[in-house]
């Protein structure tokens, strides 16, 4: 009895393992953010367009908002820019930018030439805010709910499809839950 059952059990175990491990939809480099469900790290930086103007995410507490981490050195940020502009035009939620490892002048030019989808763009001069948010590249996009909790993190360029599929339902749920 065992002679047949044991190899069969091993076979089933392998099938389950491979189904999980070789799933083409699974991104083996994606890392779950430990921030999900935790309070969004607070920051007060200056606006990339106006060094005299402070930008703090505390000002957005009480509403669902998006934090988009980008930089002019980041090729894929250029690719997602049109999607961000479209989201901004939909007035669904405010988008705060976090300009990461960048130079003010270059960032200004970028926003002037390509358009500015952000309500405010915080300029992370020394990368400390990025560390607090567990950022390890760009673009990264966070969703924060009305209680100031991080509810989702998306690593990769934003697209209209991703916005539809991953963000809109979560925004709706956050508003229902937090109302």
């Amino acid at each position, binding site marked *: 009895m065992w002679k047949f059952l044991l190899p069969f059990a091993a076979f089933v175990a392998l099938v389950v393992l491979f189904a999980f491990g070789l799933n083409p939809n699974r991104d083996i*480099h994606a*890392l*779950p*953010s*430990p*921030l999900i469900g935790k309070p969004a790290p607070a920051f007060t930086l200056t606006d990339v367009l106006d060094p005299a103007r402070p930008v703090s995410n505390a000002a957005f507490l009480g509403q669902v908002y998006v934090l988009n981490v980008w*930089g002019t*050195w*980041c*090729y*894929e940020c250029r690719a997602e820019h049109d999607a961000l502009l479209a989201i901004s035009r939909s007035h669904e939620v405010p988008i705060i930018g976090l300009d*990461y*490892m960048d*130079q003010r002048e270059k960032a200004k030019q970028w926003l002037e030439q390509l358009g500015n989808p952000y309500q405010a763009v915080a300029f992370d*001069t*020394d*990368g*400390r805010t*990025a*560390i*607090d*948010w*567990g950022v*390890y*590249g*760009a673009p990264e996009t966070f969703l924060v709910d009305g209680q100031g909790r991080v509810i989702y993190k998306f690593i990769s360029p934003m697209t209209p499809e991703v916005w539809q599929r991953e963000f809109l339902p979560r925004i709706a749920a956050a508003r229902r839950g937090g109302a």
Partner: protein
Amino acid sequence: MRRPPSRIASSLGVLLLALARLAAGEGVAAAPPVDENGQLQDHALQSRFERITGELRCLVCQNESIADSNVELAGDLRRQVREMLVAGKSDDAIFQFMTDRYGEFVRFRPPLEPKTLLIWGAPFLMLLLGGFIVFRVVRQRSRMPLDDGPAIGP
């Protein structure tokens, strides 16, 4: 491109920024006491610094530690570790700071806890399993009649 820009360009930027701040009369953030080679002057701290940064994964390159990596994020994280050491933080507090932000994945050596029991226990489980199989095979063979080859009678 997810890789941040080169270190040199950005250190230059940081330097310029520091100069600009100096010129503006702002205090520069207290720099940790390091010598001209970038080593912490306190040797005990420096050796802890080397051990800790060797055990933290650089998330940009994923198979390098932040001690070995040249990307800018690794530099920022080394600065963070250095500052926390100088501020008198314990090793555990530093690892906790990193895992709070980047998750367990930043640690090359995951701590022994219920969630990681399988990782730490797997080698011993494998050894037990192997030993059991060897035991079974040997016992089975020892019970087999020795009927191969011509019997040598007395």
